[in-house]
């Protein structure tokens, strides 16, 4: 084992175990007041008028008229307003804020606000968006983006085909369900606005404040507070409460706390995109898969948000771990009058791998062949090209990963035994996760920069990446101290503050260890050479690796700088009375390169797997007339300790050539492959096909009764 992999005590452990870590809602600076967001109660309407009651002293209304520069939250497209002005597009869209010293008075004021709406026919799902006509939500089209790409000679292959196997899969919403709701504190000293809060990406909030306030960056400061979970839900979303609280602090000249209640948080924050994915495989006379035609449709909700990037990851992942030379892949992110869909651990990957892995199961079933053998036949390997024609430069060890998971789980004998044992099943999935931003995004969009400072024998790390429970305050210290060869106690690293941390990019996309960790390792290597100098700092910029290429117009080239790989096996038994899925065991093998800390890695793996388990089973989240039906922890069911099967995980050794000490990205991949492995197991158990997730007892009952 590499020395760096040995676990050490986490640097955030002491504060957290003693309950001394100060999260945003725990912090009450002198003179602080509260704010609450007044939101649309309808899914689509023109706002005809808003009546505000007379306000007691020290209470404020904050709305679009308080915005000094632009009423827009900048993400990819600038379509989402900070506050709705003339129209609303989803239930929960912010219209204004009420701020003041007492929460109860704020609620009384909110209850007296009256909005007169003139409703417009809403677009409530993908199917309605596909067939809708004007008025459109986004520009003059039913979608935010539509993409297509080809590989090989698709048309000719289709003509040669002797057989076509087609499927359609549906996946639902998923809520991140971080335990700490969205929380922001804003303070204004007459010159500088300071945002402290629960977040993944401090610089996203900096950029939003620049646009909305029209202020110079020198007057904007964003500081991450200890953050009670994020999982993508605090990637782009905190810019909204961040800007809201800032406007309230500037208007009231008091510190303003904006903390969502759970129900509000579930109703209004971003979710995993629901999807419909259609896959057609074309087979020749030898039953070889010669081409695939894949169409991905996502429900993006009312504003574009990150839908374009999520869609890109979905369509780049949806060909799976398989080398099929001829592809035609297209994807559309539709605009609907639902809550805005956004980032969630996996970022389009879980939908894609659910679809392709279930499709591979179906092909195996149709061809009466072993599903593992079928997969192996098409596994990509070093030197092959990806779905986007980027060459895989590094060794790919999918056969080894698959061997390990099959052996560990005793897959073969269980699979054959369960053929004759009712209500028992076992399923497998094989998957990857592209680490880092899509294409050349790291170099062209993010341009990450890190800073490492030496003062006598002490070294301090300055990066914008956040500690969201994944251990960044520990892993980055380990990378730097190992590269410098100094005791870790001499390496310091705090929660990021935009004032002294350069923009090393967002804490997303399984990129922090791979990209930012590597930059820090390079800084430390340089620093080591100059170690006899007493005090200096090194700033390192990211350079796009020369052996990679990407064309963002044609989607040709290396879709990601690096990849992590994995395989899962899930064993289930269906309860004969309740039709509930009892998960007997989960086996998981990954190539994430060198683990930077084995205990932290295990925590990421098990936590991700259990979120995948929820995604596949209990986490039902549906909209009815644009309103989410499950908006509390009583109705939206995340796994509890009683839902957890034994989990066996293992890493294979295959160091990355890119990441620090051979590490690849890890944060997302554990969630990605659970749903298809579980659904395959349920298929075997009931002898019927499963084409949607989450799988509920009602779904199983329906299938069994047919």
């Amino acid at each position: 084992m590499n020395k760096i992999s040995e676990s050490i005590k986490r640097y955030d452990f002491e504060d957290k175990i003693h309950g001394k870590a100060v999260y945003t809602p725990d912090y009450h600076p002198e003179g602080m007041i509260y704010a609450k967001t007044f939101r649309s109660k309808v899914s689509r309407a023109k706002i005809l008028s808003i009546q505000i009651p007379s306000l007691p002293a020290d209470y404020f209304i904050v709305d679009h008229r308080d915005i000094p520069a632009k009423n827009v939250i900048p993400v990819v497209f600038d379509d989402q307003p900070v506050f709705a002005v003339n129209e609303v597009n989803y239930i929960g869209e912010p219209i204004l804020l009420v701020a003041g010293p007492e929460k109860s008075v704020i609620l009384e004021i909110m209850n007296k606000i009256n909005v007169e709406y003139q409703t417009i026919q809403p677009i409530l799902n993908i199917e309605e968006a596909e067939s809708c006509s004007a008025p459109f939500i986004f520009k003059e089209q039913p979608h935010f983006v539509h993409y297509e790409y080809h590989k090989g000679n698709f048309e000719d292959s289709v003509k040669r085909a002797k057989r076509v196997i087609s499927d359609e899969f549906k996946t639902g919403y998923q809520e991140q369900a971080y335990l700490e709701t969205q929380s922001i504190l804003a303070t204004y000293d007459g010159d500088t606005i300071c945002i402290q809060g629960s977040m993944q990406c401090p610089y996203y909030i900096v950029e939003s404040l620049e646009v909305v306030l029209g202020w110079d960056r020198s007057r904007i400061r964003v500081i991450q507070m200890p953050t009670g979970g994020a999982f993508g839900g605090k990637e782009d979303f905190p810019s909204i409460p961040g800007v809201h609280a800032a406007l309230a602090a500037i208007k009231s000249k008091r510190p303003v706390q904006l903390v969502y209640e759970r129900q509000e948080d579930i109703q209004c924050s971003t979710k995993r995109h629901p999807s419909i994915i259609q896959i057609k495989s074309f087979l020749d006379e030898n039953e070889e898969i010669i081409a695939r035609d894949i169409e991905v449709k996502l429900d993006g909700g009312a504003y574009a948000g990150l839908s374009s990037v999520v869609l890109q990851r979905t369509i780049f992942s949806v060909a799976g771990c398989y080398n099929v030379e001829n592809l035609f892949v297209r994807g559309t992110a539709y605009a609907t009058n639902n809550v805005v869909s956004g980032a969630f651990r996996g970022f389009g990957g879980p939908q894609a791998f659910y679809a392709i892995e279930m499709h591979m199961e179906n092909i195996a079933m149709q061809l009466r062949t072993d599903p593992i053998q079928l997969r192996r036949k098409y596994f990509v390997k070093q030197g092959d090209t990806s779905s986007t024609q980027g060459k895989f430069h590094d060794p790919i060890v999918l056969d080894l990963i698959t061997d390990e998971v099959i052996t560990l789980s005793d897959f073969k004998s269980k699979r054959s035994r369960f053929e004759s044992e009712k209500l028992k099943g076992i399923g497998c999935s094989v998957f990857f996760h592209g680490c880092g931003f899509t294409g050349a995004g790291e170099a062209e969009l993010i341009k990450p920069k890190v800073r490492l400072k030496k003062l006598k024998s002490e070294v301090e790390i300055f990066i914008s990446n956040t500690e969201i429970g994944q251990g960044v305050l520990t892993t980055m210290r380990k990378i730097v101290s190992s590269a410098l060869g100094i005791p870790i106690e001499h390496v310091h690293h705090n929660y990021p503050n935009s004032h002294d941390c350069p923009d090393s990019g967002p804490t997303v996309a399984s990129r922090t260890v791979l990209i930012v960790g590597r930059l820090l390792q390079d800084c430390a290597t340089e620093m080591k050479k100059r170690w006899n100098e007493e005090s200096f700092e090194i700033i390192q910029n990211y350079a796009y690796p020369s052996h990679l290429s990407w064309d963002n117009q044609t989607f040709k080239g290396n879709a990601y700088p690096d990849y992590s790989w994995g395989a899962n096996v899930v064993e289930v038994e269906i309860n004969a009375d309740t039709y509930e899925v009892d998960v007997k065991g989960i086996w998981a093998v990954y190539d994430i390169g060198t683990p930077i800390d084995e205990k932290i890695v295990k925590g990421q793996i098990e936590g991700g797997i259990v979120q995948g388990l929820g995604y596949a089973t209990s986490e039902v989240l549906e909209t009815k007339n644009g309103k989410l039906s499950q908006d509390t922890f009583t109705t939206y069911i995340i796994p509890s300790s009683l839902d957890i099967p034994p989990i066996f995980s293992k890493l294979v050794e295959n160091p990355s050539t890119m990441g620090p000490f051979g590490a690849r990205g890890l944060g997302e991949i554990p969630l990605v492959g659970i749903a298809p492995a579980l659904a395959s197991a349920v298929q075997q158990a009931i002898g019927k096909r499963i084409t949607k997730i989450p799988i509920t007892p009602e779904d199983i009952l329906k299938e069994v009764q047919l």
Partner: protein
Amino acid sequence: MKIDFVLNEEEVSVDVEHSKRLLDVLREDLHQISVKEGCGEGECGSCSVLMDGRLVNSCLIAMANVEGCHITTLEGYRNSKRFEAIKKGFEKSGSVQCGFCTPGFVLAAEALLSENPDPSAAEVMKGIEGNLCRCTGYHMIVAGILEAKEIGKGLW
């Protein structure tokens, strides 16, 4: 109205509405920041405290019911030997990630071990069912409690 109770072995008196939640009194009036609000409806256990030694969700307790009770939060519990055992167990097992649910799990572990000083893994799983964690997948918390029971043998 005035309500007297014992917080972490010290007598306290607060003048609050009958219906005010114990959670709010602990956080706002008595600065017990380890007590977190996760859901406000008794589902997540982030606001767990011990009430006369029993684990309760402080978001579901109205102050009228607190008169004369002994309330323990992590602010008080963390000075105990039992806490040290739980702390070591959690450190060894990687039981803490984002940390927001941690105070609740520490008190859930105390409630469980004081009821049953030698629980099996399955009994620990059952004993923490009222506390939600979205980061760990629970096994590493269960391992932490099983470690704590060994480290703190004789304390419970």
